[in-house]
């Protein structure tokens, strides 16, 4: 079973990314859970969301304390939330940052694998402005999910909610982040 913990701020779309990821994993034939940290939802306040992905039925219903992947959607939470804490041995810290993985290692002291990508810049370049979709692409790449499934699901889910133009831009951001994370060297 893979467990993922997302760290973001209310309004950044970490919960949405977590839900889309669950649907992507379902396409792979997996059992999934996706849930936010239950509590008051306030724009800008630190929040967490969780995923579980498994080949077998998922029965546990607690929060995730020892994730395989910790995802930092908002870099300002890096020091405040210490999101690498509890990561399983062999786990991965995925950070939205303009710093290199090496610099993140210096700031956190985390000894495991670090994937650093500038999801904000990717989102701006693509014209979407939201880092959650590129971060979703990065996490899917870290999980080794085939690109076709990622694209299919995002097209289907987001296609219902946004314009065709905005969808194309989001797919571009998703793809860039997916490829960046796939080829990321560990700092």
């Amino acid at each position: 079973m893979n467990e993922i913990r997302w760290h973001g701020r209310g309004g950044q779309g970490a919960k949405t990314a977590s839900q889309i990821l669950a649907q992507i994993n379902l396409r792979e034939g997996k059992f999934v859970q996706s849930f936010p940290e239950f509590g008051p939802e306030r724009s800008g306040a630190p929040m967490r969301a969780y995923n579980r992905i498994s080949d077998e039925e998922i029965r546990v219903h607690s929060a995730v304390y020892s994730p395989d992947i910790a995802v930092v959607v908002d870099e300002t939470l890096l020091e405040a939330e210490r999101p690498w804490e509890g990561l399983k041995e062999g786990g991965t810290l995925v950070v939205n940052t303009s710093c290199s993985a090496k610099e993140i290692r210096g700031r956190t002291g985390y000894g495991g694998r670090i994937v650093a990508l500038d999801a904000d810049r990717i989102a701006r370049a693509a014209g979407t402005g939201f880092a959650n979709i590129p971060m979703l692409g990065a996490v899917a790449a870290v999980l080794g999910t085939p690109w076709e499934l990622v694209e299919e699901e995002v097209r289907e889910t987001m296609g219902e909610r946004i314009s065709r133009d905005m969808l194309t831009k989001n797919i571009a951001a998703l793809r860039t982040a997916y490829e960046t994370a796939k080829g990321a060297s560990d700092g």
Partner: protein
Amino acid sequence: MRKVMTGHKAVAEAMRQIEPDVVAVYPITPQSEIAEYYAQYVHDGVVHSELVPVESEHSAMSACVGAAAAGARVMTATSSQGLALMVEVLYIAAGMRLPIVMALANRSLSAPINIHCDHADAYLARDAGAFQIFCESAQEAYDYTLIAQRIAEHDKVRIPGIVNLDGFTLTHTSQVVEPLEDEAAKKFVGPLKALYPLLDVDHPVSAGTFAMPDYYFELKRAQAAAIEEVANVFLKVQQDYASLAGRRYAGFIEPYRMDDAERAVVVMGSTAGTAKVAVDGLRKKGEKVGVLKVWLYRPFPYAEVAQALATVQAAAILDRAFSFGAMGALYSDVAAALAHSERRPTLANYIYGLGGRDVTVDQILQAFAELKEARPETRLRYLGLRE
């Protein structure tokens, strides 16, 4: 087809397929999304239900009583304080023998105010005369909503039914659910056969009548017989559903790795799943442990619980609410079930998970570890509490 959906959506989907004539509902966290989904279905013309957006839960249940007495198929949903406000009228619904099915998104009761999960609301309605089912997953919440509708509307039952699903833990968690096709679900539930409907003006009846000491007792005895009858109907309907949907549902309780278990936890709701994970871990280490999950809480399956625990040496009964001034409510039922058994385990009673306190595998492991030293006692123990 397997889909990812929240517990809310799973319940709303079952309601859409049942398509009651009337849904009277008032929003309250963590139930609100069920009402919102259903309102959307009504707005979109997906269902032809009369949605009554009442001004309180007291009114919601009152509207349900009126509509059900008139001969309509009726559903509602609530949580916590909403149920507290409904309870007065829920007793009336049961006494009038009205088959109103409701989802209860389990949430703690105030004060202090808290929107998160425990079972205080379900326990509050315990003696109202509704049958109660507890669900482990969103899949079960979907399945048992359909099953409850059939049970409630059975000729020999005709009482309200409550389908419990843990607030947030099930309602707000997206998980894999495999619903039935619409046609299969509709066929399974079947049409409502209205009994003595008030709107049948050719056959006028009185409903909600006065009963003095000369008849009240007998009428209440008849109501007791009706909820006892749920047990028979439950098994039949559950079996029908299991073969239709391909689920392994069989009985009022679900024993998990209980065959040679020396220690067991008895539990209701989503924690049963977490307990199964704890049991799998301990079994790998060679420990003989199991879980007894209670699906049907009211009427309580005394004989089945006693039998399932007969060969166990020690059992922890997990209550997700206080019954202030007494042992936990589930514990009291299990103890009563075992009162006449020659072979019975030493019992421990744990209060856990109040107000949404996260329930972890480690907490269940703690209960199993403490059961090794179980001694006869009448006191409450706690899981996940800072003292």
